[in-house]
């Protein structure tokens, strides 16, 4: 498989008062297209920072990020926004849905920024919601949905732009184990359809479902291949 994501000597430092915090310390990593990688590590180890840099939400202090042959390290904000819009689907622990909008409107949001015509974006959003099993909940607001259903809406939103990569940051963190398993099943299904899946978790059960487990500790990587591909 071809390399989709390539990180070279990535460093990310934060200044907290007088202290300099190394969130990422000389990290190099290659993720192939269609891979399912889990990033694990204790709190504050730098896993979310890593995911944010891959997702184009954050920039490294030094080092190179290459996705699909494009160097993202020094591109302008506009390019980075377009990259997020075209390549990345984010799934967050706290769902991050717009509370005042319906499931359908939430899923439509990335398509609005992609300048897709209203008719087409509605069709695509409905298809995505149907794909996550919420075809009958189009006009429900997040407050009218269960936790699992909300995360499905979030996944549908990530799917809407047909991303190459889905980055899920603790996708099951706010769900009970049964709902969590359902969500993981859904994500793995998408992975099998060719979408590269990066899941950030500190739950070993979830990490072990990945084909590859990347452990991060104090901003440094150590890696082992997972049991289940």
């Amino acid at each position: 498989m071809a390399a989709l994501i390539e990180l070279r000597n990535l460093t990310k430092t934060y200044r907290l008062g007088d202290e300099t915090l190394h969130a990422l310390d000389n990290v190099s990593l290659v993720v192939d297209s269609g891979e399912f990688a889990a990033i694990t590590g204790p709190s504050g180890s730098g896993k979310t920072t890593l995911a944010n840099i891959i997702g184009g939400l954050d920039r490294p202090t030094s080092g190179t990020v290459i996705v699909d042959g494009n160097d993202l390290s020094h591109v302008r904000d506009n390019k980075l926004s377009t990259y997020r819009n075209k390549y990345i689907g984010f799934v967050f622990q706290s769902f991050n849905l717009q509370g005042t909008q319906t499931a359908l409107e939430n899923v439509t949001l990335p398509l609005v920024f992609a300048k897709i015509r209203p008719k087409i974006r509605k069709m695509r959003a409905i298809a995505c919601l149907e794909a996550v099993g919420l075809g009958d909940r189009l006009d429900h607001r997040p407050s009218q949905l269960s936790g699992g259903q909300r995360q499905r809406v979030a996944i549908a939103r990530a799917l809407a732009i047909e991303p190459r990569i889905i980055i899920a940051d603790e996708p099951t963190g706010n769900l009970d184990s049964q709902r969590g398993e359902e969500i993981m099943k859904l994500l793995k299904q998408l992975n099998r359809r060719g979408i590269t899946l990066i899941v950030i978790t500190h739950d070993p059960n979830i990490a072990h479902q990945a084909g590859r487990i990347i452990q991060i500790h104090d901003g440094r990587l150590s890696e082992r291949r997972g049991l289940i591909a």
Partner: protein
Amino acid sequence: MRFSDYIFIAFRNIRRQKLRSALTIFAVVIGATSVAIMLTVVFSVKTFITNQFEQNGTFQQVAVAPQTDITWNDRGGGQCSDCTILTDALVAKMQTRPNVVGVARQVQLWQFEALLYGNQKLRIQQLVAYDTNGVIVDHLLAGRDLASTDKAGVVTVSSDYADKLGFKGNYQGIIGKQIQLYTSQYYNGVGSDPLKAYQDQQAWFAAHPGASGQDYHPAPVSIPATIVGVTDASLMSNYTVRVPLDWARGMYEDQNYQITPAAQQAANAACQGKPGPCNVQPQPSLVVTDELAKNGYTSLIVKADKASDAVAVAADLRHTFKVGAADAQTEIKQQLAIFNVLGYVLGGIGGIALVVAAVGVVNTMIMSILERTREIGVMRAVGARRATISRLFTFEAALLGFWGGVFGVAVGYVLTLVGNPILNKQLQSNNIGSTDILTMPWWLVAGVVALTTIIGILAGLYPARRAAHLNPVDALHYE
């Protein structure tokens, strides 16, 4: 993002915070209403005054008076000691000046007190006479204008007289009716009986030996006249009776029975050398003085070929004839300058209200951004550019301004609807025919809405920039 999406999303966000949006818009409405109303009042009054002057081609007219320091308001003439007398010879010379197309001689008569009709008695504000040569044009509502062939016995009256005499709405009905022009005491022009006046005076002094001349009050005179036309009572010509110029000349005459020095001499001669008391009394004879020829016309109205030449004509007349000359334009410019200042002052007050409203918009937008920080983070995560976020919030602020402007203008319009009937009553009580003078022109409506929208945009710039530069990672984790 598509333009329609910006509008849709901005709309939705404004509706989301109904009360807050409504209060913010309310502040803009207050500012917009005050600006709209103030501009409407200033614009309407300026238009009204200009129209009043434009009627009858007043802008082409130059008022000429004997004294040199006159303004347009003195066009009825005034008192002076060291003046150029406005004679027919002078008028003939004025006719030949460049850009002058006509001169109307004007006489104002002060010896008339009232107009009598049946048993009604109405005070005469002004009794005037002027040439009928197209320089001064009366706006007739019924009957006919005075013609140069009219010599005496006919008048036109302004419509306010007709109204008072019970012919409101039926001005045709007053045509042909006879009225009396009631003079003040001492009137001795045409229509008076100077011989009788002389005899009355003699008889009175005979009955009151030793009385002072100040105690004698001769009787006023009533002069009959037929109404041939009703003219529009405008701002400048209310309660006006117009008589033919020839008649006015006669009214101006000083007719007196006097004992002339010659008669006195003759009587003295007859008595000379005769013993005892002499019974030969000097015979009084009628002496008529043409006061108009002596004192000149009250004023002249000179018509320039174009309104734009009136100022130059006035200057030329002043320079050439050493008379006072005033054009309406200079006058109206002064009057309107006051309204310009008024407009700036009132507009300034509205402007301050709008500045306060703008601060409200800034406040609302900053609150909105704080509340929606996570939402902004999500939008950025799914691909919204900084410029997109910035535009979204700018649109929202612009929409607050836009609605404020629309409602403000609407409230202003309603206020003009309320104000017009009140003003109409006021104007009617002053006998001015104009109605509904408060008008809101389309450019004012568009201008005020555009202004508040721009204010909304400007007020939204800072909050929008702030929203656009939020760090997406921080925004997503904002609690």
